[in-house]
């Protein structure tokens, strides 16, 4: 079974620029999550999708962050404009309905804002 695919692996941008991250979940997984992991901290949930609908985006800074999951499969997370404090690893995860064991993370995208 293929894992959760994320791209790019690394990205360096200047503050006030925009950036987008892509995630392709495990086939058949209905739920998709984006987490932000700042250095020295645990991952923090930004947004949760069920199929192509948003379940929870309460911790997403909506003035600069946006995410979509078209057709209930892959997803894109965008930051515009980026701030220095957005430097982090952005992790995508997916899970099947009703289970934790299939809750699988991708390798993440490391963003550095300079």
């Amino acid at each position: 079974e293929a894992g959760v695919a994320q791209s790019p692996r690394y990205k360096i941008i200047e503050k006030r620029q925009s950036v987008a991250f892509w995630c392709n979940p495990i086939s058949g997984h209905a739920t998709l999550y984006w987490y932000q992991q700042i250095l020295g901290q645990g991952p923090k949930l930004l947004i949760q999708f069920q199929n192509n609908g948003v379940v929870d985006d309460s911790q997403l800074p909506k003035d600069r962050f946006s995410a979509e999951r078209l057709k209930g499969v892959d997803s894109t997370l965008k930051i515009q404009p980026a701030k220095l404090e957005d430097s982090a690893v952005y992790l995508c995860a997916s899970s099947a309905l009703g289970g934790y064991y299939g809750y699988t993370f991708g390798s993440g995208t490391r963003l550095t804002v300079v």
Partner: protein
Amino acid sequence: DQQVKQNSPSLSVQEGRISILNCDYTNSMFDYFLWYKKYPAEGPTFLISISSIKDKNEDGRFTVFLNKSAKHLSLHIVPSQPGDSAVYFCAATKTNDYKLSFGAGTTVTVRA
């Protein structure tokens, strides 16, 4: 507010000995707890979990203990092996919620 806390940022243990990782939580609504292991440049991978209806769950060399009254859980690794050197995250959630709240992680180094 940090609802899951791992107060030990690092742990060094000799190969073959026991590693004990601790985790505390503040939200009494949490009823499902997970441990993840993370190698550099990789995403976290699921290790072991426990429901609040249990106080112990064992899987090979890994055992998780839950003390609900103290809002505390621990992960025991016996015996520790060099491949266990990684960052370990404790996570908690409410059943059917699936949003994980993570601790800051503990870096385990297993010495030969």
